[in-house]
């Protein structure tokens, strides 16, 4: 997808449609929130030019759905796990700062690696659960 904010929503909608049959409805809600926040974060904060491209792979495995976001060439490495935010501890009247917390809260597993090529953010969503998280 293009490295632009207006490309995020269409990609999220397309990914939700792609995995809709593979995830329970409650997990699909978390999936949508997580993907929206992750893609928005990459576009807004990775520092890559608007002409750059973010590759997104979706794999439906027997036990989980795996999403891999390959950040654009030239993006600044950003491991969300290093910037964990406890949503419960955040000022409820804060106007920003929830995105990373939502990514970590809504995915069942978050991995990040930055090898020689584009950095990869991996998000895992288990298929055999109700999905409700508090």
């Amino acid at each position, binding site marked *: 997808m293009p490295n632009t904010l207006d490309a*995020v*929503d269409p990609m999220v909608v397309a990914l939700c449609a792609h995995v809709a049959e593979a995830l329970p409805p409650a997990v699909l809600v978390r999936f949508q*929130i997580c993907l929206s*926040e992750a893609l928005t974060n990459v576009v807004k904060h990775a520092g890559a030019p608007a002409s750059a491209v973010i590759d997104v792979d979706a794999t439906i495995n027997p036990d989980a759905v795996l999403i891999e976001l390959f950040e654009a060439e030239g993006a600044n490495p950003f491991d969300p796990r290093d910037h964990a935010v406890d949503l419960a501890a*955040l000022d*409820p009247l*804060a106007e920003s700062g929830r995105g990373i917390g939502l990514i970590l809260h809504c995915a069942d597993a978050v991995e990040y690696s930055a090898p020689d090529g584009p950095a990869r953010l991996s998000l895992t969503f288990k298929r055999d659960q109700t999905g409700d998280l508090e």
Partner: protein
Amino acid sequence: MIHTTQHPKDITVVRPGVERLTAVNAKAFKDAVVALIEDGASQLIIDFGTVTFVDSSGLGALVGVLKRVGHRGDLVVCGLNADVAQMFQICRMDKVFTVYTSADAAVQKLAENQ
């Protein structure tokens, strides 16, 4: 982008005018509602009845509007579908905003409170 409906006792119902309130349009939404407040609106109901998804930027914009209203008025929300309600719950926004099932219910309550 927003659509408004005026009710007695200076109550204004605001519909965001988008299906998804996200980073791409949250600032425009906030700016539009803040303009209403600056024009004198103080009893505001944000009707999410046609909104299917809200991200953290959308919630941030809503919080910004709430802070702009401050103690001079009231701001409540209504019409949250299950997905939007879960987003509110995860982000503890259900503790910040009074939530009504419908715009009619919210209008009635705000009118009673005046």
